[in-house]
């Protein structure tokens, strides 16, 4: 079954490492839905969060193949592990006349922010997990979405609750 998986990949922060990881996906026909890269805690390392789709066997291969890349330090997958996941996006919507009030109400319900306004458009900043952002996009569609920019998911394992 084609399921959504979020992978967390810790890599050496060196030239070409993104290309090694991206090349693995393209070369083996795996799908990248979203990809986020930024420096990680330890100096000289970067953290990649990759969202992909695939069945269990493909996921297993992706994990193993990622591990095999010499510049990859650690790979984790968060389907069965308690984790927090967030993504940020900007949505520019058409906003004229009576629409403006309704857009603002929607923005309120989802605890988003309006970060830019013109006489005819509004740009909304939203943060949430994958489902929440999909829901916001679904609701904003009827106003007319002009543009979307998303960061891709980032994910972190939850701390243990037990003391």
């Amino acid at each position, binding site marked *: 079954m084609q399921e959504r998986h979020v992978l967390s990949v810790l*890599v*050496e922060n060196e*030239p*070409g490492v993104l*290309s*090694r990881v991206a*090349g693995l996906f393209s*070369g083996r026909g795996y799908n990248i839905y979203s990809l986020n890269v930024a420096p990680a805690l330890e100096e000289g390392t970067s953290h990649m969060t990759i969202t992909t789709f695939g069945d269990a*066997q493909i996921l*297993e*291969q992706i994990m*193993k*193949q990622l*591990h*095999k890349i*010499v*510049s*990859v*330090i650690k790979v984790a997958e968060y389907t069965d592990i308690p984790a927090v996941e967030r993504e940020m996006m900007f949505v520019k919507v058409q906003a004229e006349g009576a629409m403006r009030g309704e857009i603002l109400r929607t923005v309120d319900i989802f605890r988003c922010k309006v970060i830019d306004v013109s006489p005819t458009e509004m740009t909304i900043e939203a943060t949430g997990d994958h489902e929440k952002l999909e829901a916001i996009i679904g609701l904003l569609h009827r106003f007319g979405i002009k543009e979307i920019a998303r960061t891709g998911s980032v994910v972190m394992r939850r701390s243990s609750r037990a003391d």
Partner: protein
Amino acid sequence: MELTGAQILLESLKKEGVDVLFGYPGGAIIDIYDELTKHPELHHILVRHEQAALHAADGYARATGKVGTALVTSGPGATNAVTGIATAYCDSIPLVVFTGQVSTALIGNDAFQEVDIVGITRPCTKHNFLVKDVKDLAKTIRQAYYLARSGRPGPVLVDLPKDVQLGKTEFVWPEDVFMRSYNPNYNPNQGQLKKAIKEIRDAKQPVILAGGGVILSDASSALTELARMVKIPVTCSLMGIGCFPASDPLWLGMCGMHGTYAANMTLNNADLIVCVGARFDDRVTGKLDTFAPKARVVHIDIDPTSIRKNVRVDVPVVADCRLALEALNEIAQTKLTGEDWGKARASWLGTIDSWKQAKPLQWSKGGKYLKPQHVVRVLNEITRGNAIVATEVGQNQMWAAQFYDFDKPRTLITSGGLGTMGYGLPAAMGCQVAFPGKLVVDVAGDGSIQMNIQEMATLVQNKLPVKVLILNNTYLGMVRQWQELFYKHNYSHTSMTGQPDFVKLAEAYGAEGYRINTEEELKPTLEKALASPNPAIIDVTVEPEEDVYPMVPAGAALDEMLLV
């Protein structure tokens, strides 16, 4: 004392125990070549094409088990090397390739003879480096050799900009290598081994499928010990040939597309496959859905990605093949020696014997020309299976694999995964450099040989007495065979009339040329040619439309073989 990058490179090679380099100079690597003449202990073989430098280093690595080293210039020198790098990558052969590069200041400016070779080779190297600072050079070389030979071996490329070759720094050789992101696992999990032992004990119809990993990890004797101890028959992928003696009664021959009837029938009727260092390539399994339907699978491999990539595995063992087999043998010594395995397996081995008897490897007699299979048998007879045999790719390769009796590992040198035509001659050259006193034969076709025939000049210049045995059918035989069998005899561009006179060609290079047309000429001429102290081409006219059998058509089940 400060050394230049070029000096550091050569000193580092000596630290790594490198004694021979295969290469070709050019503008972006000239500073290293300038230094090279001051280090006579580093033997350099000047090839005639960079692809051949890579194949020669690869042949050297396969024959010796050491890391092969190649040295080429930037731009076209580097791109010419790519086929050789990919060939080594597909067969997990340890190589380190040094490429010249334009100065760091020019990188990205489309300078003369500049290509992004690190980018180009990213998917066909185990790892690669662009050295931007001479201070990193020694450490990078140390890592490159470590990566090439450790874990699942493979080619590593080190790109050396001209200013790094000329830059100066203190030479400090790092005795230890540590890479936090790279820690190959060698030791088998004891729990998994116990499960494997149980599978072996419970199986009624087991078979061992051995691959190139057995040869790479020098596990042949451990594998042979296991097979003989518990009487399990052995088949190999093309890459595994030689890891189990062909003279042993438990030997089934190669399996897969051109495998023996007995090997393929055994696999598809087995209730247990112990796969060691093979990766269930499509040429081995045939149609995956129907592959070994009754078999449970124990899979030993150092690379976790090989496991469960193509087939379901019941007992995965991620480990070095030799360490895993030795540990397995140790447990088997205490747990499995109580039983009379000869008796326990009598019925299974009897069934296999009947398959062997029913459809042995054979060829149809008659016809006007020598049969290529017969030529390989005669080669086997003359050399008593003691030559190192390199092959080109295609029918010649399959006939060599089928009809030459390989009793020892590292004696069949062939491009398995990538199937690179033009591989055999330069690879044979690398073997001959490694073993000057041994007989090295390249079993070739008239098509493949012309893809790197310029290396005859290298043989002559370096007095390397490689023998090239051309099975000349004036066709690209394997493609022609597919056209005959699956494309309604439409021989589209596979006929190679207008071939050169290979005897004269050999002589033009300063080598010896022999021609064989008849049965009467075959043995005496071949004996004479093989005994020569010089490089030689032996051009044998063979049946033009001979096919390789058995054959499992692409996409068919392993037991759906076309037979002679």
